[in-house]
């Protein structure tokens, strides 16, 4: 160390204006904004988001775009290829495939969305209880989850739908019966990690109620993994619904989901392949976008996990 002598002249009082050094000039960036900035940089994920929005928009507005509807039979015009009147052709009962395809997309998206929301509600409540209380409560619930989880979910779903007549409500219900477990485990892990942090302790010290700590402090901080799990639930629910349709357990005619449309088209695929084309492309595109967007979201919300 070189010797240094400090002289009093070197110490000068700051002028008032120089206190500005303590001011934060740059706009403060919340964790969410930060994630959004990272997400915006991921071109592929943003493109997927746009495509998903367009699909949703079309699923809502397509019914006003052509003069046909999804359920009117027109036996004089069955199995038409795509033309200027029927943009996607017609099916074996002469129903307009443009309307049916977009209606199917809407129903598939709704099934995915509702299943994800039910998973969210159940998973957050049960997972929150497991993580927050820990101990005996956690052990019992965790064992229960493990037993439920080890039952092959698809088989249980099929059984449930066979018993309760297929409809959108029963399909969502059946999918949620095992679907929430994954979410519950993720919330449990997050809550366990967070509950011992100082800010939670501080909240408890000033007398915040359990539900306030849970919903104001723990859950918002666990939101990243929860949202990522949600975006991954939607495509798997859409796929599960399509699989059920394939077994004849999907949404019942005249309503249609993308799965039922594909299943109908399969029967006559060698003769009328175009009936298969649009629903198949649409379901694949939707799943693709959800997967890419979900990956992008995970990278954005949790940069540490990025490979």
């Amino acid at each position, binding site marked *: 160390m070189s010797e240094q002598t400090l002289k009093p002249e070197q110490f000068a009082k700051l002028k008032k204006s120089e206190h500005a050094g303590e001011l934060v000039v740059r706009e403060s960036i919340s964790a969410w904004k930060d994630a959004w900035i990272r997400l915006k940089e991921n071109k592929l994920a943003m493109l997927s988001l746009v495509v998903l929005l367009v699909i949703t928009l079309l699923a809502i507005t397509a019914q006003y775009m052509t003069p046909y509807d999804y359920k009117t039979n027109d036996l004089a015009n069955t199995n038409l290829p795509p033309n200027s009147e029927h943009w996607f052709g017609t099916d074996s009962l002469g129903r307009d495939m443009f309307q049916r395809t977009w209606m199917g997309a809407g129903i598939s998206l709704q099934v995915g969305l509702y299943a994800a929301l039910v998973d969210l509600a159940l998973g957050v409540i049960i997972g929150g209880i497991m993580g927050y209380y820990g101990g005996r409560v956690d052990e019992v619930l965790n064992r229960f989850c*493990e*037993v*439920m989880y*080890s*039952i*092959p979910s*698809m*088989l*249980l779903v*099929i*059984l*449930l739908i*066979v*018993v309760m007549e297929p409809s959108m409500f029963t399909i969502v219900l059946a999918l949620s019966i095992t679907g929430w477990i994954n979410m519950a485990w993720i919330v449990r892990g997050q809550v366990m990690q967070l509950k011992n942090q100082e800010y939670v302790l501080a909240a408890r010290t000033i007398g915040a109620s359990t539900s306030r700590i849970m919903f104001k402090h723990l859950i918002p901080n666990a939101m990243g993994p929860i949202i990522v799990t949600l975006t991954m639930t939607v*495509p798997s629910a859409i*796929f599960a619904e*399509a*699989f059920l349709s*394939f*077994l*004849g*357990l999907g949404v019942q005619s005249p309503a249609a989901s993308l799965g039922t449309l*594909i*299943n109908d088209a*399969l029967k006559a*695929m*060698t003769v009328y*392949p175009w009936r*298969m084309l649009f629903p*198949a492309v649409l*379901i*694949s595109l939707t*799943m*693709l976008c*959800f*997967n*890419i967007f979900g*990956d992008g979201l995970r990278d954005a919300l949790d940069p540490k996990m990025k*490979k």
Partner: protein
Amino acid sequence: MVRYVIEKILYMLLSLFVLASATFFLMKAIPGNPFQSEKNIPPAIQQMLMEKYGFDKPVWEQYVHYIGNLLKLDFGTSMKQQYVTVETVIKSGFAYSVQLGLLAMIVSVAAGVLLGLIAALNHRKFLDGFTIFIAVLGVSIPNFVIASALQYFFGVQLRWFNVTGLNGPLDYVLPVIALSFLPTAFIARLTRSSMLEVLSADYIKTARAKGLSGRVILVKHALRNAIMPVVTYVGPMTANIITGSVIVEQIFGIGGLGKDFVNSITNRDYTLIMGLTLFYAVILMLARLITDIAYGFIDPRIKLIRGRGGA
């Protein structure tokens, strides 16, 4: 290790019991009796059928009888096909499904690991991006779309393969590709990410510093460690291939267990549905059990932790 395996087996039996009970009570919850829908069956014969299947007894007695039969591995008799036991159906269909399923598994593991390896070794280059693209496509396109597209292009249009049936070795090609698409994509992703992680680990640097050849490092040091996550995927892969086989067998007209399952659901053949569901469940749980045990063997760290209790 022994204690760990026994614990897993007990869990498996408990889950099976829950599933068996659930199937039983769910089927009982269906309104009406299963023979009402049949046409031209006079009430007297319906009554006899009810007696034959034991449906005239109280529910708890039926339940005890059902569980007792399951313990004797007796799944019962089909309700819609006279004199056909569930066992016969399983015996006749299982062979096809197992052949297809095992072939698909081998193809998926081989192709998936290879793709993942290629991607990891060409990190951030064209081949890497291409593999990721294929992998995302593979998990996104539902397998009935893949199966019917394959059937349409290679069977109907190009006529390279038979459209349906399973009579010669060539007939296996399309169904196996359709079945292995999703697992291949998944394994490729798993292998790629774990390979990337392993390749940047310190012991790889050490091996390089010692001057070992690239191939030795790759195979002995990197791949052996990177393959670990793939082993955990065997359980879910079995589930994927079973759901896939239900679809693929139906599309390609193969008389395997998946097709029986679809038919049993369309015909509302309750005993057959219950029997096949339990059978599938047993296979899936066995696959998970094997995965758990195999993982314990492959990864010495797990054996150490689990080995505390007994050994």
